[in-house]
């Protein structure tokens, strides 16, 4: 989080959209309030309907139809991007995503390439219905790829790669990062990166923290603090939540022997549970201590900022978990 001139997470993802719209006429964008002059509830699409007339379109308040329309467009050779106004409302389009988009290739052999953008995650005062992390339910059915950029560069890379992907991709963009995360070193235009590879954001030898989305920053902050105590933390940014890059995690565990999985989502049956389960299956012998989960509390997300801060995990919670393992 650096100089104000640096590229924001929001600008990076907008730039990715502008590039794919320019490069590929199969791409179009559908969502509520996405057209100029408004340009989306978070301004993610600002300027795009002007630059690409007719290809960035406002939709009625009809999430199921928006998602279903994307399925059709994809089957007809399009590369639709849909924007849900908040990840919380994507639930109204869940059936089309989970039962239609996700099943089509397996059932018919015809790919269904669409990208669904979901502004997710907490902001103070957002409350129970504007702060949710939806990956818990969006990973339940087979067939959806779920990505969650945690850096400015990845906001750009993962969106480009998502549009290039032949499968339906859920792209979770974190609202808190939109303007808060900036990268002076951002660079556009390189080769497409693979969609499903995790990244080691910080190397360390005492404990591995696996995380994603806005919690990547929290984990890095936690690691800095722990370093002062002499604890050397490795931070892995999953980038892609499904399918999981278990290989990268296991490589790390081979070095550290300790695992904390941190997520802003609810605990039950979460991405964190899945990481732990896959690690147990394939790398149990690497574990020198019980794998730990750091997650949100098991209630709706509170409106009041004081409750909200206590509901979601933070750098302190990660530190505590790491300390617990290192002293195990």
């Amino acid at each position, binding site marked *: 989080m650096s100089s104000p001139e640096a590229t924001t997470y929001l600008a990076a993802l907008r730039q990715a959209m502008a590039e794919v719209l320019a490069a590929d006429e199969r791409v179009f964008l559908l969502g509520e309030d996405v057209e100029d*002059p408004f340009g989306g509830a978070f301004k993610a699409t600002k300027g795009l309907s002007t630059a690409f007339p007719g290809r960035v379109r406002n939709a009625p308040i009809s999430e199921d139809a928006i998602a279903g329309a994307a399925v059709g467009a994809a089957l007809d050779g399009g590369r639709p991007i849909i924007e849900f106004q908040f990840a919380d409302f994507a639930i*109204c389009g869940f059936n089309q995503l989970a039962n239609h988009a996700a099943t089509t290739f397996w059932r018919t052999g015809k790919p269904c390439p669409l990208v669904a953008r979901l502004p997710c995650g907490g902001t103070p005062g957002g409350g129970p219905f504007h702060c949710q992390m939806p990956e818990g339910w969006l990973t339940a059915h087979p067939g959806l790829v779920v990505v969650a950029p945690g850096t400015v560069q990845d906001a750009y890379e993962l969106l480009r790669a998502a549009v290039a992907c032949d499968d339906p991709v859920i792209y979770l963009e974190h609202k808190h990062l939109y303007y808060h995360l900036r990268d002076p070193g951002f660079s556009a235009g390189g080769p497409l990166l693979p969609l499903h590879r995790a990244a080691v954001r910080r190397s360390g030898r005492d404990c591995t923290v696996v995380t994603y989305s806005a919690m990547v920053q929290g984990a890095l902050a936690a690691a800095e603090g722990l370093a002062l105590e002499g604890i050397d933390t490795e931070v892995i940014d999953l980038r892609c939540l499904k399918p999981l890059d278990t290989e990268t995690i296991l490589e790390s565990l081979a070095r550290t022997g300790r695992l904390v999985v941190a997520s802003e989502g609810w605990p039950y049956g979460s991405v964190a549970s899945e990481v732990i389960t896959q690690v147990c299956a394939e790398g149990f012998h690497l574990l020198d201590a019980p794998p730990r989960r750091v997650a949100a509390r098991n209630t709706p997300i509170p409106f009041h900022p004081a*409750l909200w801060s206590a509901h979601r995990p933070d750098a302190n919670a990660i530190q505590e978990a790491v300390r617990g393992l290192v002293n195990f």
Partner: protein
Amino acid sequence: MDQPIEPAPCDAVAHLQWMLRARLLEERLSSLYRQGRIPGSVFTGRGQEALSAAIGMQLRPGDIFAPLIRDMAGRLAFGLPAIEAARTYLGRITGHMRGRDGNVHHGLVDQGMLPMISHLGAMAAPCVGILLKRKITGALVAGDQCVAVVCIGEGGMQTGAMHEAINLAAVERLPLVVVAANNGYAYSTPSHQNFVCRDLVDRALGYGLRGWSCDATDCRAAWQTVAQALAAARSGDGPQLISARLLRLAGHGEHDDAAYIDPALKAAAVDCLDQGRQLVLDQGLLDQAELAALHTTIKTEIDAAVDQALGEADPVASDESWQIFADPILAAGAGAQA
């Protein structure tokens, strides 16, 4: 239909008072928002008070009210103390939502005012469920039924949820009144990008129910339409659909400058509050001085309520149980981690 029920006549002064209470309360909340004292945003019903107040005022104990984002006037008239609205916006522990939910997401379940969730369209089916449960248990009195009113915008009418709920009410012939406020925009989206029928009242035919249409910037029209629809529903005429034309005289929320609104629409806009004031003057119910005095009285009352809420306590995280279950056995037996 059983015996027709006479629609209630409008007390223009009382109507104006509720409109004014809502306006002044929301103006105060907006000003707190601009001072950075309210988490999230503030959503106002500016320009929609005549319709909303007409609903809240004409509902009775035992009725159900599912207000939406623009319904401060209706909430107050239905019985919500102004201080409760302020507490919810501020997230005070003293409020009935205890800081757990905020801004427009609150209700008084025991009094029949449902606490909206954000998902548009989602409040209609619960209203239908309440009426259905009452029908089944024999609690709907023939000829003078309790009613449920659910409010929605023209954008929200396009959700599948509204469709299913209205249709279920029609099939079960329940006293549901759907009030669709067409304020020209859904957030930034003009209504012609949400629907292309002439008037949303045209949906009534397709559900097999009665439709009403009005210009809800006109206080009398708003009152009268609500009165007639409520009377019909109470009489046993089944669900009613009101399509009300008006304009949102504010941003979607106070964070929004509404720059996208058609300037011609803005220029031609009628503020129902002005119209309501003129009405009581024209009818000789109040004179200018009395109007000014009314304004002062209400402002004082509202400010007192908000000031009191401002002085009250925030929730404290360490006091939270994070207990999700209502059931005593589950609450005792199952940890907060579930």
